[in-house]
């Protein structure tokens, strides 16, 4: 059996496990899994802007909120179907992301992060204070459940499959984008904006696109969140979310979409599974980020794949296939001794 087949079998087993997951666990576990799915999409968005294009953005929580509020307004006030509300919300967030980040894009590298904090802070204030539209601190309740014809997706178990589909779409979309022309332009921009420009890449358009894509993902995540919880309030879409999503991306590995998935899922699951850590987990993440950067800047995914390397080799050898090299390639040169 060849390595490729082994991988395919492993992916298949994983997919089946995900499909039967909600049938074998309780309501609360499914709820946590749904939240994790939403965060995976948010973090994948952050991967596209920061991991791929090197544009530091700490406004992911704001874009998430725009998506959630758009969906709530479109479904509640205009009575639109979820299937129209979701793309509209994602596009609304993307347009908002591109417009507000237009002035921010002028700012030099690290200060861009600061400028996006401003976007986040102002958006949070608007969610909180624009009472006629957002309901202010009381939030918005009674967001209807999405439906496919007569089939209403209302329970957490049903929503799980909905979120699973979109999370998968987001993940494979990000993977596809990474190797596309757009993804290559983004990487060129990240590594050396001047050289990218010299190579004929429109760096302004690429920066805007990176922000737009991140916001698009966040908008879709917001839409899903709104129909999962049926109630949204401004304190959900705070700066702390943007920082947490940033931490998730770095925890998993910021240069690969897999890192976003692993980072988001672990950061959501750890406080749930290790209740005794509840108080400490954010502090541990803060310290963990520094330690990872110092000792292993590629993140957990590449660390895990290094740790499981002997096992995978052993399986491969047992099955008589050729022994493959490390699968997840992270170019170390882009991390160490880069632009100074």
């Amino acid at each position, binding site marked *: 059996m060849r390595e490729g087949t082994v991988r395919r079998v492993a992916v298949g087993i994983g997919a089946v496990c995900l499909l039967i997951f909600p049938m074998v666990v309780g309501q609360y576990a499914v709820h946590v899994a749904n939240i994790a799915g939403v965060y995976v999409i948010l973090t994948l968005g952050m991967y596209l802007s920061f991991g791929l294009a090197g544009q530091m953005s700490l406004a992911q929580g704001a874009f998430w909120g725009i998506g959630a509020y758009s969906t709530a307004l479109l479904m509640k006030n205009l009575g639109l179907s979820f299937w129209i509300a979701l793309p509209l919300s994602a596009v609304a967030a993307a347009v908002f992301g591109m417009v507000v980040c237009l002035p921010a894009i*002028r700012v*030099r590298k690290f200060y861009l992060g*600061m400028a996006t904090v401003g976007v986040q802070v102002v958006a949070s204030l608007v969610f909180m204070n624009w009472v006629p539209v957002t309901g202010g601190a009381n939030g918005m309740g009674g967001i209807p459940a999405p439906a496919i014809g007569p089939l209403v997706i209302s329970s957490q178990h049903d929503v799980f499959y909905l979120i699973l589909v979109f999370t998968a779409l987001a993940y494979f979309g990000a993977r596809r984008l990474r190797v596309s022309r757009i993804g290559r332009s983004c990487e060129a921009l990240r590594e050396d904006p001047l050289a990218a420009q010299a190579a004929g890449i429109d760096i302004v358009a690429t920066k805007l696109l990176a922000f737009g894509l991140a916001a698009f993902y966040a908008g879709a995540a917001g839409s899903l969140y709104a129909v999962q919880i049926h109630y949204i309030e401004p304190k959900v879409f705070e700066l702390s979310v943007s920082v947490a999503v940033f931490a998730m991306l*770095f925890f998993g590995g910021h240069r690969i979409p897999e890192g976003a998935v692993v980072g988001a899922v672990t950061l959501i699951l750890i406080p749930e599974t290790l209740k005794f850590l509840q108080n400490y987990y954010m502090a541990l*993440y803060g310290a963990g980020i520094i330690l990872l*950067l110092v000792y292993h*800047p590629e993140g957990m995914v590449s660390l895990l794949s290094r740790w499981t390397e002997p096992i995978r080799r052993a399986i491969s050898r047992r099955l008589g296939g050729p022994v493959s090299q490390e699968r997840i390639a992270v170019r170390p040169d882009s991390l160490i001794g880069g632009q*100074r």
Partner: protein
Amino acid sequence: MNSDLALNLQLLASGLAIGSIYGLIAFGINLIYRAVSVVNFAVGELVMLGAYFGSLLALSLGLPLPLAMVIALVGSVGVGLLLERTTYTPLRNADLHMVVVATIGASIFLQEFSRIIWGAQVRQFPAIFDVKSVDIGNIHLSPQYLVILAVTAVLLLSLYLFFQRTVAGKIMEAVAQDKDTAALMGIKVNRWTTVTFGMHGLLAGIGGLLLAPLFLVFPTMGFLVGMKGFCASMIGGFGNMQGAVIGGLLVGLVETFGAYYIASDYQDGFAFIAVVAVLALRPRGIFGEPVAEKV
């Protein structure tokens, strides 16, 4: 005196006072940026720790306030140095983005650390003067505003003299301008980088002690203050020392007057809106150093 004028003068005083603290923080941010080309996201947490140290020493340990403040500032310098050792030193040869991300990690860690150790509840800070307000005609000023203005004025003047007139200041300037040449001149660049981080911690700590009586003390008190320090630094002109002060005062005034005349709910947003406005008109900030890249 007419009461509108009195009100505006009161707003002016509080705006300048808050603004001079932002200026102080922006000064520290620029110091670091010029020395090592990174920005420190955890600057607000240095402010918060300065306030905590002062509050704990003065109220929980009952030390006399001046002694508590001195020890708190020593602690702030220590935290600045610790920050260098943990986030800058191990990563200085890597992509500098990594250092910035590490300071975000430090910011999360310090916020959570202080919440775990000292709890989320808001702490008091002893007032420096017992008087409720200083009255000039019908203008009522909090004495704390006057303390802030006096302390920052003295501090900024001494910083100016330090950088203009002392050998140490000149050495730091040389290191900021060209590390390699400075090293060839026999300057121990790494040692002076450490001094810069210590000064960064000191300035942030002073900011914290000055803010504490106004804001009270809690784990997240510093984050937005730090971000507004960055706003001040961007408005004044990236890395420009006078710019930091002018930018800080501007942010303080915009925020105070905006909160009163436009919308108090949006007080924390005005600083960022001011940044966007200034950058749209002058992409390099007021004092013209390149803060933006041309797009």
